[in-house]
């Protein structure tokens, strides 16, 4: 018999009493904060800033200028952007002369060394966020691949402030994740970090050293 059959047979020979299905939704609904957008923005910002994340308020039309000014202050040479994304196109339309925009156009195998060795920063959108823990939700895809939020030293993220959920459970319920999960879904709550050396917290372990969140408020434009 195969390992699979042996393991399942051993498990099945034990009779178990199954308790009632845990009522997770009820627990969260009775422990959830009922906050409006402004309160959620504040909660999200506080949590993110507590873990070394730069958070800026901006609008759907003004974020490109803000991003370029931050990039200039940080002396960034280049910025990795997705392909055919509205926000990438918006930046490209500005034709910034001091910041080279690099599109993630090809499969990683053809330009891995360049990504690891030459890219300073990246810009991605986020799907939504979680106020409770200060968390950004990203569902990378063909246009904005997974490594964009991992390999560059600085990661810029755009967030529509109306898409901040109270907690993780309400995010996955409201967005019906169980029927739609992509190849990779990510929660990101700070720049990469470690406390593995004598419990001393250090940022920039293996992923981005800096996380910059651009909170986009309404002003008539779109992200």
């Amino acid at each position, binding site marked *: 018999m195969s390992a699979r059959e042996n*393991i399942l047979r051993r498990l099945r020979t034990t009779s178990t009493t199954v*308790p009632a299905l845990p009522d997770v939704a009820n627990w969260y609904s009775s422990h959830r904060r009922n906050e409006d957008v402004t309160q959620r923005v504040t909660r999200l910002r506080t949590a993110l800033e507590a873990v070394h994340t730069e958070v800026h308020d901006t609008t759907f039309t003004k974020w490109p200028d803000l991003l370029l000014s931050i990039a200039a202050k940080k002396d960034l040479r280049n910025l990795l952007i997705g392909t055919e994304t509205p926000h990438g196109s918006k930046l490209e339309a500005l034709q910034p002369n001091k910041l080279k925009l690099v599109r993630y156009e090809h499969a990683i195998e053809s330009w891995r060394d360049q990504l690891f060795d030459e890219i300073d920063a990246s810009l991605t959108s986020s799907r939504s966020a979680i106020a409770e823990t200060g968390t950004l939700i990203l569902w990378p895809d063909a246009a904005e691949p997974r490594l964009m939020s991992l390999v560059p030293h600085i990661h810029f993220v755009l967030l529509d402030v109306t898409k901040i959920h109270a907690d*993780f459970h309400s995010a996955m319920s409201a967005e019906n994740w169980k029927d739609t999960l992509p190849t990779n879904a990510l929660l990101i709550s700070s720049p990469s970090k470690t406390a593995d050396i004598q419990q001393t917290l250090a940022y920039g372990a293996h992923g981005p050293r800096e996380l910059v969140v651009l909170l986009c408020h309404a002003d008539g434009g779109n992200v």
Partner: protein
Amino acid sequence: MSHTIPIHPDSDFKDRSRAILNNPSHRKNFRGAMDFLQEKRRGQFPDQDELAGLRELGATIRRYSLARLPQLLEQLEKNLTANGIQVHWAETADEANAIALNIARKHNARTIAKGKSMVSEEIEFNHAMAAAGIDAFETDMGEYIVQIAGEKPSHIIMPAIHKTKQEIAALFEEKIPGVAYTEDVDALIRIGRQVLRRKFAEADIGLSGVNFAVAETGTLCLVENEGNGRMCTTVPKVHIAITGIEKVVEKLEHVPPLYSLLTRSATGQSITTYFNMISHPRQPGEKDGPEEVHLILLDNGRTQAFADEQLRATLQCIRCGACMNHCPVYARIGGHAYGTTYPGPIGAIVSPHMLGLDATYPLAFASTLCGACVEVCPVKIPITDILIRLRNEAQARPGSAEASLRGSGAGRKALVSTIWKAWSQIYSRLGIYRLTSWFMSRGRDLSPSDQGAWTRCRTPLIPAPKRLRDLLKAKK
């Protein structure tokens, strides 16, 4: 390269513990680290009612998942397979290594980048790969430090917790070419980052553990702070995940409470930097991510724990390490003294199923039964009850109804059994009890001054000159 720490019988566990207790620097490191982690955890649970409710919810989810384990494993396999993830089953550590090795050979792999995985430690993965000429290198900073030092993790969450920054500075200077001695933690992390980035880019395979496997969606969830787990599961062309069969939950919505309990209990963080949910290999049109994803489901003794209603609770564990952070024994002797992959209270109750009770029963006695581990366990495992059960199993007569585990009865000593049998007879018969206590009080001067381990650091036990019964009678 990893090295094997053999499992020693009773005397070696005591010898190792004694050696560590005589090392003031080691004791100071552990005490400081445990105080730090306890304080951090406390800060995450200011509301005791919320904590109680969340623990109850977490425990119920884990009990529910275990009660339906065979069905959930099949559901998980079906949905993972439909998602394009290849599922393998292994009864033993050797089988798990052989599966990984086959995958590696199929891809002519020379290097494997490893995210943190205690199951890979459990099966001595690095050792097995090295024997086949494959370099499996650790990428979690703590695991990396421990690996280049030629050691084993001393804590399941913070593997290098036994090392000071001075020791790590000296280690980096010695082992990494061109690195000068520095005690600056940021600089040390930068060095690790630089060395490992190059290795991530070149690795043929990435290996990871799994924190939660979701049956209804066919999703593998990984919890981490450093980003190395994401590197290992995204950069190489092949990703192998390995997990114990107990990590499955039925519904996606079962994940948030367990994830919250895990990070808050483990390191006192409200959330980790990354929560990485993997449901497919790279899809057509996608530009990164592994083209193949494999999951190895490992038994390695877990079905033995599952078969017994009381011991099944061991499998509720979500590997937060809070039990060891709060254990007065672990805080003094640290992880290496246990000699097992999983140290501390959880190690004492899970290791007998992996290695046999004969090899591990002394660990069940390395507890004061104070219950601190039970109080902090986020999924309410009755650890002390299980420790007592394992003590009884260790003393049981082989072949008897009380001896139900592999290695039961290994700690049985004829003299001790006879003494307890006599004790039981005396205390269950009133006449004999009165007679014995009368003789004991009269013959107290005959008490031996050397009472073995008891008198090594305590005064001898001497019966009272008058029995309680006599004292009460005199009072009337």
